[in-house]
Structures are given as C-alpha cells and as structure tokens.
C-alpha cells in the first residue's frame, strides 16, 4: 500500500513509524524543515518538505497513485483542505482526517472525507463510562448503515429492571446483541431474558433512536 501522511508531528511521526514497520510504502509531507530532518534521521528518506494542501506538493508526492491519504496536522482546516485536494483532484480512494475539535467530525464527513478520527471523542468515552448518569457509550459506528453499536449499563432505578426483553419498548431496528452480567458469561439475550440492575447491554441502534433507547434502559 502507498500511504501519504500529512504532518509529521506527535500523531504523524508514530503513525509513519508503525506503517513502515508493517512494510507499507509511506511518504510524509511536513512543513517544518527541522522536523523534516528529525523524521529523516529516524525514519529514513520518507519525507518531503512542503504544504500538504498544495496541489503542486501533492503532485510531486505522487498522490494520484496513493491508496490512502491521512491528514494529521493540529489544524482542522488544513486537514480538511488536504483531504479534499487529495480526494477531488487526485481521486485518492480513502482519505482519513484527524479531527482536533470533535464538533468538526460530522462536517468533515459531509464534505467528503472518508474517515475521521477525533482523539477527544475517544478520550470522552471512558470518562463517560465512569460517570454514573448512565449515558450510552459509543463502541462503533457503522457509518454506511447509519447504525451505532452502543453499550448501556442499567441503573438501579431503571424501569427495565426485572423486565423480560419482550416487554421493552425498543425502537424499531434496534438489536440487543449481548447482555453482560457480573461474574457470568456474556449471553445473547432472548425475548425471555430478564434484565437486572448493573447489567451491561450491548445494542445496535439507528443514530436517531439513541434517545429512545436510552429512555428504555435508563429512564425510571
């Protein structure tokens, strides 16, 4: 695979190192001359100095034959622009952007970036899990299907406690995939599975039904 990485900073550098160790052909485009020297010293001749949003620089980098294009700078507008130039001018099949401000994730996808990664969103997940307000934890987005895989912990005062699955007013298309109970093997719930406080339920739901699903398990 030929992978182009924009920005050789705190994300770009270890990313390149990991990709190189997996045997991929990697090129990193970095604006800062000193940083370029550092990258060359540590990774070999895999770096060109330039602006990763510049069509001329991307041309020189052979972007048209790249399989994957990843923008990892600390500026969202630069990451968006770089991915858009790669996608619309050089027809790169897979563009991936680091999103520094999580509010931009949805925007980037709407504007044609194939995949977005928000560090802040990922950091928030384990934090939310620790907070007892009982929000849904996002485990995975099935973007093409518009579905989310979520985890929810059933609180003591939930109206779902002691109820079998068949009595829950689940939103349409919602699938309960697993029920994880303390000191027991995770089980695939049936319509007769009776839920208990403290159960962790892994469910598949449409993005727009999240609030309804939350109410089923967390509402009292």
């Amino acid at each position, binding site marked *: 695979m030929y992978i182009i990485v924009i920005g050789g900073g705190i994300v770009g550098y270890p990313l390149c190192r990991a990709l190189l160790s997996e045997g991929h052909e990697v090129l990193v485009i970095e604006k800062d001359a000193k940083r370029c020297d550092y990258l060359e010293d540590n990774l070999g001749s895999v770096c060109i100095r330039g602006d990763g949003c510049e069509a001329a620089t991307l041309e020189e980098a052979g972007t048209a034959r790249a399989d994957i294009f990843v923008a990892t700078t600390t500026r969202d507008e630069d990451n*968006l622009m770089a991915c858009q130039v790669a996608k619309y001018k050089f027809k790169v099949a897979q563009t991936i952007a680091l999103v520094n401000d999580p509010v931009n994730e949805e925007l980037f996808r709407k504007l044609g970036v194939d995949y977005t990664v928000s560090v802040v969103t990922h950091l928030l997940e384990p934090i939310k899990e620790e907070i007892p307000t009982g929000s849904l934890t996002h485990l995975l987005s099935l973007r093409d299907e518009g579905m989310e895989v979520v985890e929810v912990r059933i609180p003591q005062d939930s109206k779902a406690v002691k109820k079998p699955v068949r009595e829950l007013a689940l939103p349409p298309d919602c699938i309960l995939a697993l029920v994880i109970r303390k000191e027991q093997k995770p089980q695939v719930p049936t319509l007769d599975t009776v839920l208990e406080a403290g159960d962790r339920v892994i469910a598949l739901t449409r993005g727009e039904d999240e609030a309804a699903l939350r109410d089923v398990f967390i509402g009292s």
Partner: protein
Amino acid sequence: MNVIIVGCGRVGAQLAALLDAEGHKVTVLDIDTSSFERLPSSFGGTSLLGDGTNQKVLKKAGIEGADAFVAVTQEDNCNVMAAQVAKHIFSVRKVVCRIYDPLRKDVYDALGLEAISPTTVFAQLLKEKLEPEAESAS
C-alpha cells in the same frame, strides 16, 4: 440584504463599511478584537468575536437568516472551510471566499465554491494596465 463577513482585515472591514453604508444588515466576525478597530466609527452593523468555521459561532452571528456570506480571513484554508459550512450546512444562497493561492482552483470548482483569487485578479489588472503601452510601442 443580510450579510455575514468572516475576517475583519483590510478587505473585510472595508467591505463591511461599504455594505453598511448602503443600508444592508452586516455582521462581521474575527478571532481578534483589535481587528474591529479597522471598522469606521460610522459602522452600524454588528461585530462579533469568534471563529467563522465554528457552527455555533455562525448561528450566533445569525447565519440561518443570512442572504450572503463572505470569507476573507488571512488563511485560505479557513476561508474554504467557512465557505463550505455556510454553503453545505446552512445553505446560504450566495457564498464567496478569497483564496490567495490560485493553483487549487479546480478543487474549489469541484466543491462548488465561488472563490476569488486576488493574486490572479491583480496580476490580470496589472497586465491590462501595461497592455496599451506595449501595443503603442510596437
């Protein structure tokens, strides 16, 4: 007309003043309050501190009722991003942005953006200024 201008530099401030003087409702955004000093004392529009690529800030600026949107910050990429937010998220009818670098024009065309490159416009102007002399000399 209800206009939002992102970037209160020399161009943004002058455009804001011109439109305001013509009676349009103008809101100008910048991330630096000192930029608003460029606005004339007669300016009757709104100046708002904030990032013009941020949807919350744009809502506060009243983008949902805007007829036109102009992005003229110093940063090409900011202008392109702000313009796309205005066009594709808030469906503003008229969106124009400034791009210093003319090389990426085909990309903006692909994105459906109306971009003006001062570099190209000014070079063309200079060329036209020089042409009559060149002709008379030949």
